[in-house]
């Protein structure tokens, strides 16, 4: 996918190869400008690929304008028609498809029930709250029973509480309709909560595809590990099945690792402070109490700052203070070796 002319050409998407399964909740995740929305717009037909192809259940989509694709979009700004009522908005696609009036009325009723907006059919979009507009946008797209529903940052405009509600709502709609959802977001937590599978995107390429567990527990690169959740990175050297840290301590390798420089990724909640000071020696820089958890910020010689997150199961026991020397324990299964 190449944009622009001459020296201004920009390759927005590069070597993307994806297969999305029937009835899957598939998420494209990445920071702004990574190409996730462009990919969605290619599927919807608002953009044409300069090379490559997109198939829908075997049928190539090239050259088909958006209005001939059995795919519907929920826009980030909802893009509800301000001059039409809620019911007319929902009916729009079916009318364009030339469905009989009785059927349209029936589907509109069903959709209003599905998104819990019965009684709102004659309102204008401007008279609805953000969450209600979101539901109308969903109903308008789902009414046509598309083969694929595309959701472009659809929850980003909502406040946190409403967003959590709509996340559950979307999962319910996905289960009830059996339609394939392709969801675009920059919010990693949202992606983990909702998706069957996630594609993490980076500068127009796909960095990793996998289930939320795979992406979170087994990131394949520093980029993915850093983007999804919080991660500590340690520099180490692999030699003969052992990982040597600069301070002289060593760890067993969790998987076979060829000798050389490596980066270790460790999730903050999977590292532990040892009770007896054994393990890698570190110094406490700060202790942050967060209610459910306490975060210990550690300094390790020759390493980046390191975080340990520990659940406050026994209440707020502040056993260590800033400045204390502590031992850091890294269970072998908590350590992920990255190639870079």
């Amino acid at each position, binding site marked *: 996918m190449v944009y622009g002319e001459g020296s201004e050409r920009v390759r927005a998407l590069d070597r993307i190869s994806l297969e999305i399964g029937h009835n899957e909740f598939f998420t494209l995740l990445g920071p702004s400008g990574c190409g996730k929305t462009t990919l969605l717009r290619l599927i*919807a*037909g*608002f953009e044409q690929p300069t090379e490559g192809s997109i198939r829908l259940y075997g049928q190539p989509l090239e050259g088909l*304008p*958006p*209005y*001939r694709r059995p*795919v*519907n*979009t929920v*826009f980030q*700004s909802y*893009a*509800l*028609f*301000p*001059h039409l009522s809620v019911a007319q908005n929902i009916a*729009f*696609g079916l009318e*364009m*498809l030339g469905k009989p009036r009785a059927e349209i009325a029936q589907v509109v009723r069903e959709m209003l029930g599905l998104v819990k907006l019965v009684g709102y059919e004659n309102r204008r979009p*401007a008279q609805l709250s953000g969450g209600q507009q979101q539901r109308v946008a969903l109903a*308008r*797209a789902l009414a*046509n029973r598309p083969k694929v529903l595309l959701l472009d940052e659809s929850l980003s405009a909502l406040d946190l509480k409403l967003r959590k509600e709509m996340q559950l709502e979307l999962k319910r709609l996905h289960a009830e309709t059996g339609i394939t959802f392709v969801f675009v977001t920059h919010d990693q937590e949202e992606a983990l909560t909702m998706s069957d599978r996630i594609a993490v995107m980076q500068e127009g390429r796909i960095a990793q595809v996998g289930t939320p567990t795979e992406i979170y527990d087994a990131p394949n690169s520093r980029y993915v590990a850093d983007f999804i959740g919080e991660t500590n990175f340690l520099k180490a050297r692999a030699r003969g099945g052992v990982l040597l840290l600069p301070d002289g301590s060593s760890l067993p390798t969790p998987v076979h690792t060829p000798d050389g420089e490596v980066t270790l990724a460790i999730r903050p909640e999977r590292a532990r402070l040892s009770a007896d000071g054994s393990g890698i020696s570190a110094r406490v820089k700060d202790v942050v109490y967060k209610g459910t958890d306490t975060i210990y910020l550690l300094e390790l010689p020759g390493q980046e700052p390191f975080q340990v997150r520990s659940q406050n199961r026994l209440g707020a026991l502040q056993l260590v203070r800033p400045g204390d020397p502590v031992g850091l324990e890294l269970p072998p299964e908590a350590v992920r070796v990255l190639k870079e």
Partner: protein
Amino acid sequence: MINPRNPLWRFPGLFWVMVLFFAFLYVPIFVLVALSFNANQVATIWTGFSWDWYKGVLDNPNILRAAQNSLIVATAATLLSTLVAVAAAVGMTGRRFRGQNLFNGLVGLPLLVPEIVTAVASLLFFLAIGLQLGLLTVILAHTVFCIPFAYLPIRARLEGLDPRLAEAATDLYASPWHTFRRVTLPLLVPGIVSGAMLAFITSMDDFVITFFVAGAGATTLPVYIFGMIRTGITPEVNAISTLLLGVSVLLVALSFVVGQRGQAR
């Protein structure tokens, strides 16, 4: 309305400059309106209130014919110019093409070309192609200079529309024509109404171009008023002018209100 923190207000005498400015603009018009109700035969000496001149205007068949011509011309020119303006605005918005700025400038150019030049050019053109001067030539000439007045509000409205709305329509199986008919056009209505009203009053008020291209029998109200003035300023002239002013103010106000309502949505 007057913000004391605006540094301009520190200048002494600003208030009186403002009063003078508005007086300069509006006193002549108020005098004209007031004198249209003057009972005296001599237009400039006030003696008492009277509706006589308005009755005179309504009884004068020549004035009525001129008013009718003005309405026919304004209505036809408004319809034609608005149609062209909508097409031009839709063509210009939402895409980029080579020479777009040039085209945009050309659509608005009639606003800048001296009217007398347009008038002479139109006259020469009609004569050259052998078109008989009459209502038709007036309508054609008016359509030309009304286009930019209709175009500007429509273009502004169109540029204010969320491009996602048209995309949403195509996404919902609407062909380009249906997208225009069902989504773009209805949302454009405030701009179209506003543009059409501006075109209408511009046509109603035009004198210079009409004076050149109107043949016998195609006299419009402004041209007729000019003819009356040449034989002396009668109170009747004041009365017609006041009526014309009323129509203009009403339409401009209406156009403004419709534009505002469109903004609010």
